[in-house]
């Protein structure tokens, strides 16, 4: 099912939860789409500047290079910067998979095995003048059973607010608890 929330900067985001089986859950946060008006604003600004330069310098290369730069810039933005959806797939006893899908369709995935996961927690961070909450995975330190070797922050570009994070946290903890209650193998 899907529910609407707001991100830390006020943009609307949507959280979709799917339960595939008793020990497998998928939580996906969809980020706000690329706005047509911001795209056209940037494009017209670049082209106005290029036209101004063309009037000053009488060189038509300026115009063609402006078009070229706009196209290349848009492709780079869509492929490397703009994230469409961030999802978390929790499979009990296998691990946690974090996927970010970009606007151009590229997906970058990281899989963390369950033996490396210590816990999933909500942390606070002070960013400029705001205090924001973020969800993160704590990785186990192989040498020290109480220690944390690394912190992996989740949902970094959609930055959901606390209410959304609590939902995600509850879903994750239900599955993580299962591994504590049944560690004895037959």
């Amino acid at each position: 099912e899907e529910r609407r929330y707001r991100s830390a900067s006020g943009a609307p985001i949507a959280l979709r939860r799917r339960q595939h089986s008793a020990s497998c859950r998928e939580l996906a946060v969809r980020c706000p789409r690329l706005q047509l008006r911001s795209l056209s604003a940037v494009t017209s600004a670049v082209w106005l500047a290029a036209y101004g330069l063309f009037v000053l310098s009488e060189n038509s290369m300026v115009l063609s290079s402006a078009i070229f730069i706009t196209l290349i810039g848009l492709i780079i933005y869509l492929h490397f910067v703009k994230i469409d959806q961030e999802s978390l797939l929790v499979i009990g006893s296998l691990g946690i998979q974090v996927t970010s899908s970009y606007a151009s369709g590229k997906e970058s995935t990281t899989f963390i095995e369950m033996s490396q996961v210590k816990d999933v927690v909500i942390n606070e961070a002070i960013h400029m003048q705001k205090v924001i909450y973020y969800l993160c995975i704590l990785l186990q330190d192989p040498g020290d059973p109480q220690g944390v070797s690394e912190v992996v922050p989740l949902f970094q570009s959609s930055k959901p607010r606390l209410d959304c994070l609590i939902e995600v946290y509850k879903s994750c903890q239900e599955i993580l608890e299962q591994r504590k209650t049944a560690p004895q193998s037959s």
Partner: protein
Amino acid sequence: MVLKVFFPSCCSSAESGILIGRWISEQNSAVILAVVHFPFIPVQVKQYLSEVQRVTKVSVSVLGSWSNSKQEKEKSLSEFLEDLGTIFSHEPWIQISRQGDSKFWSCSTLQKHSNNPKEEEIILVYYDQRKVMLSHLHPPLATDPKADDASKLSAIFDTVAKSKILFMTDRYDDGPIKLTHWQSDGVEASIIVELMKQASVPACLLLTFLLSLISGICRSRVLKFWPLSFLWSKLSICEQLGHRLQHLQVISSNKKAQNQTQLMRKANIFVSLLIDVALGVLLMSWLYRKNRIGHLADTLIPMADHVAEELQDLLQWLMGAPAGLKMNRALDQVLGRFFLYHIHLWISYIHLMSPFIEMILWYVGLSACLGLTVALCILSDIIALLTFHIYCFYVYGARLYCLKIYGLSSLWRLFRGKKWNVLRQRVDSCSYDLDQLFIGTLLFTILLFLLPTTALYYLVFTLLRLLVVIVQGLIHLLVDLIDSLPLYSVILRLCRSYRLAAGVKFRVLEQQDGKPLRLLMQINPLSYGSVVQTYRLPTYSCYPRDSWTSLCKKLFLGELIYPWKHKGEKQD
């Protein structure tokens, strides 16, 4: 706990039979490697498995049964399969059955000696056997490589990779066992690869023989006499040739590569050499077409003349009143005339050599066929030779300046009544005689007032020298880049990305209630940055040798700087 079954996707359409693979009890997971079809004799199966276990050191055993029935489930078959569980005792006995062409299989386990009879959840994970076998898992760089609790994934990858011998028997063999796995339709091989393997043995022997000859010549006593050895150490081309010789020795050695890293290293060196030589031959063909070498030689002498004229103008400017500063006339004239005479000598020398330049350049250009890096090193050496007079001026200016600075600092201490204690490495007070003080103060004043002139000459020639050093440094950077780039790994990542794995990714397939969870395991390839970082070849230079502060300090004190030092040379 949850039971995980790793099923190869190539066996999805296999006939009914029993499943063989490895059971990893600590993770409660079963890795299925192949399906053995009916009819078979259980004793022969057990024999075969123990042989495989002996060779591969992987504990392969019979894990369960697989039934693929096109019609409705037959009662007798299911009972027969359960009875098999008693013959091959394995705890738990996994039963997977597929009806017709349905995507959703039913999977159940039979536990005979279990304490808690509750149904445990089963997860079915499909994997591509060929890709998992060929891929190499790279653990993240931060983790300890000898961590004892090896990750689950590496256990699975290891199991499939080590069971290569299991995949050698295919459906067409006449043995007692009929298996289905990814090679069951016939063992794959490439004829080109086989031919190259056969041809590589004599080629390696020949190469080793040639290399031993060449290294014998290089190490002979003739080349070790003082002027020659000094020359070899200063020319960067010798360093590069030695480096490439080392690479060739690595490739042509007879020992097979022990592990993945060595194999990739050999392959990277081979491809790098190949590309280098190809680019060098391309450059050579471009240079020798339309007699460009001749044009280059023709422009070389006028360029050297031009540089010398510019230097002469510079010196005339310094001998006058440069930038409005007033120099000490006598010292100025002496230094200026000395440097001018030096330039005059250099120009006459160049003019003496000019008829032979074209021929020398023609023969030297032929060595570009050894590689582009060699050609770039030759270019760097030619620049060094042509600007040798700038280097000489820099050394003269620096030594004069350095002498002056040391003299000034020591006489300044005398001026204040102190002395440098060499034994204690500190400044101590000292009482001087009157005549010592008098001479010392006189000398101090002279040196102080001559300082601006020397400092200006030093500054100008240091800037020129730094310019030449920067140009040479850029060329060496390019050479290093070509030397250390692991091209084979990058191409492998581009074309066969499953060979270099950073990890895995799971995709959830269609589910049906009551059936086990279905996941698809795919290989997550390594990013290009990590590929280059993991497999880059070591080079012979290390920079930066000095940090910026120590460089500035050396410049201020007038010590000679050598910013691009090589690893083999001893430190100053």
